[in-house]
C-alpha cells in the first residue's frame, strides 16, 4: 500500500487543457436547444459502436480515458448501454454485417441524441472501399456500406487515421456546443 500511495503522489496531475469546439467538423445544423446542450455539456454519456473498424480508432478512444486527456474530468462518461447514452461515437466503415446492430443501437438510444462519426472510414468509407464509383465518395463494397451517414444520421465527423485523442475530444465537444453563426 505504501508503494502504491507513493507512486500516486509522485505521478502528480498530468491532464492537458481540453481543445475548443471546431465548427468545421459539423455536418448538420445544431438540432438541440441550448438548454439541453448546457446539460450535455456538463454530463454527457457516450456509447461507442465499432461498426467495422480496424481497431485503430478504438485505441485512441481508449486514450481519451488516460490521465492526459482525462475525459471523465470533463463530465463525459462511456456507458455500457445505448439506453443510458446521449451520444453515439461510431467508428469504422459500416460493414454489412453490422448494419442491423448499428441501427438497433441507434434506435435504442433515447432522444435527444447525437452521433459523432470517428475516423476516415466512418467519414467516407476509407481505405476499405473504392471511392471511385459513387458521386460523393460514400464508399461501398460487397461487404461494406461505407460511411456511417449511409446508415444513420450523423451530426459531426472527425477524419484522420486514426484521429488523435485531441481531435476526437474536439469532435465530441463540437457536437454539444451551440452552433456559431
Amino acid at each position, binding site marked *: 500500500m505504501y508503494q502504491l500511495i507513493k507512486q500516486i503522489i509522485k505521478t502528480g496531475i498530468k491532464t492537458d487543457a481540453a481543445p475548443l469546439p471546431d465548427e468545421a467538423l459539423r455536418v448538420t445544423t445544431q438540432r438541440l436547444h441550448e438548454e439541453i446542450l448546457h446539460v450535455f455539456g456538463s454530463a454527457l454519456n457516450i456509447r461507442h459502436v465499432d461498426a467495422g473498424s480496424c481497431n485503430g480508432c*478504438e485505441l485512441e478512444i481508449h486514450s481519451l480515458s*488516460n490521465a492526459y486527456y482525462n475525459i471523465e474530468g470533463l463530465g463525459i462518461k462511456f456507458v455500457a448501454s445505448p439506453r443510458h447514452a446521449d451520444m453515439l461515437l461510431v467508428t469504422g466503415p459500416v460493414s454489412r454485417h453490422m448494419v442491423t446492430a448499428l441501427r438497433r443501437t441507434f434506435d435504442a438510444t433515447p432522444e435527444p441524441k447525437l452521433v459523432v462519426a470517428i475516423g476516415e472510414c466512418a467519414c467516407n468509407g476509407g481505405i476499405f472501399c473504392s471511392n471511385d464509383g459513387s458521386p460523393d465518395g460514400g464508399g461501398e463494397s460487397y461487404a461494406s456500406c461505407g460511411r456511417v451517414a449511409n446508415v444513420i444520421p450523423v451530426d459531426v465527423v472527425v477524419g484522420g487515421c*486514426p484521429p488523435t485523442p485531441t481531435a476526437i475530444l474536439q469532435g465530441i465537444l463540437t457536437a454539444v456546443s451551440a452552433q456559431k453563426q
Partner: protein
Amino acid sequence: MPINHPNLHLTQLAGAIPAWSGNIKPDDLQPICRNVHDGGGRLVALWGSDDREQGNGYSLHIALVNEAGLICLSVPLPAGQPGYPDVSSIFPVANRMQRATYDLLGIYAHEGQDHRKWLRHGAWHGGSFPLRKDFDAAQSLTDDADNYPFVQVEGQGVHEIAVGPVHAGTIEPGHFRFSVVGEKMLRLEERFGYTHKGIEKRFESMSLQQGAKLAGRVSGDSTVAYAWAYAMAAESIAAVTPPERALWLRALFLERERIANHLGDLGYLGNDVALSFGFTQFWILKEQVLRNNGALFGHRYLMDSIIPGGVAADLTEPGKRTLFEECSLLEREVRVLRGIYEEHAGLQDRFIGAGRIEPRLAAQLGLCGLAGRASSQAWDTRVQFPCAPYDQLDVQMATYRNGDVAARVIVRFDELFESLRLQREILGRLMPGGELSLPLEKLPALGFGAGMVEGWRGEVLVAIHTDTDGNLARVHPHDPSWQNWPALEHAILGNIVPDFPLINKSFNLSYSGQDL
C-alpha cells in the same frame, strides 16, 4: 529439406526467413500434414485462390511451420469440384479457416465435421463467393438475417447469455454465447465475422504501394507487424533486400509496437480486477510512448512507416536521445508497478488460476504467440527464424507454464523488459546516415512470397500471389487470433461469468484481423 515425403518437391523462396513452396496433389495433403504434425510442427494459415484466369481451377494454400522454417504448399483443385481432404482432423485450428475459405471462395473440405458458415452472415447469399474473380457484388447482396446454428446445451438450470455484437466496453464487435448454470460457465461459443469488410478482395484492385497501407490496417494495433510481413512477402518475390538502416528501423518500430500494446494491456488487466490505479499508471507510460512516436516518426501507431523496399520514417540523433531517456523512464517505472502488482493480494487472487490452458491442450490447439508462450508453447519467430536484424540481437524468449491469466501477465512483463533491452541495443547500433529504402515499384509476374513477423500478439503472416502482369492477384493476411480465439472457448470452462472479461482481456485477440 524441411519435410521428407516422396511426392514433395520444394523450392526455397528468396527472402528474410527460411521458407519453401511447392505444389502437391490432394491425396498427399493429409500425409504431409500428419508428417509435420508428428514432427512437432504447426499449421500457420490456410487460404484459397481462384486461378481460372491462368487456365487452371482453384488452389488451396496452406502454410506450415516446423523447426526448419515456413513451408507453403499449394494444392491445385479442379474448377468443377473444388474439394480437398479435411485438414482439421490433424490441426483442429484449421476448422474456422476451412469454413471461411468456403464462404469466400467456394472450395470445401471433404469429410469435415463442421460445415457451418463462418465469415458469411447475410450480406451475400450462400451460392456466391466474393473471392472468385467473376463475383458480381450487385447480384449477390441479400438482407438475410444471420440465423447461425449455435450448439445448445441442455440440462436442468442451464440458461444462455447472449453478448454482442455491440459490447459493453469500447471494443470490437463479436458475439459470445454463454451456456451457464448459476454463475458457472459450461460452454462458450464464439460467432465472428461482424467486421468483415472485404479486405482480401480490396487488395486485388490495389497497387503494391496501396496494398502496403491496407495491410497496415488489417488490425490497427498490429500495423507494424502487418506492414513488415507484407513488405517481406513482396521483397521475397522481387528477391531484394532492403538497406540495412531500414531493417534496424523496422525492428525498432516492431518493438515499440510491442511496448505500447503490452503497457496498454497491463493497465487494462489491472482495471479489470478493479485496480484502476494500474490503468492510470500504465496508460500514462503508454501515452508517452505514443507521443514520442508521433513526434519522431509522424504517427502515434507508426502506420505507413514500413513500405515495400524499406521504411518511410527516419530517426535523428536527438530523437535517439529521446528514446534512450524513454527507455530509462519505462524501465524504472515498470519495475515499481510490477512490484505493486505482484504484492497486491486482491489482484493476484483474481489472476492466479483464472482462464487456464494447460500446456498439453495448448499444443493440441496450436496456441501461438504471447498466449502460447504463457502455456509452454515456445514459439517466437524472432528467436527461431531471426530475420535481419534479429539475427544480431539474440532475443530472449519469455515462456511460462501455468497458462492462466497470471502467466499471461508475467509473459507480458518479461517481454516488455526484453523489448526495452532490444530498443537500447538497436539504438546503440543504428549508425547515422544510410539509405532508407530501395525502389520497389512492381513485382515480377506469377510470383509467390510469404512474410512472417512476430507481432506483439503472435505471428503475423502475409502471403502474396502476383498475376501475369505482376499485379496483386491474391493477398492473404493471417492474424494469430485465428489460432487463439478457439482456445478462449476452452480457457473459460469452469470459470464464473464475471471472470470472462478478465480472461478475454488477458488474450486480447483481434476481431478485425480474423474477420478480414
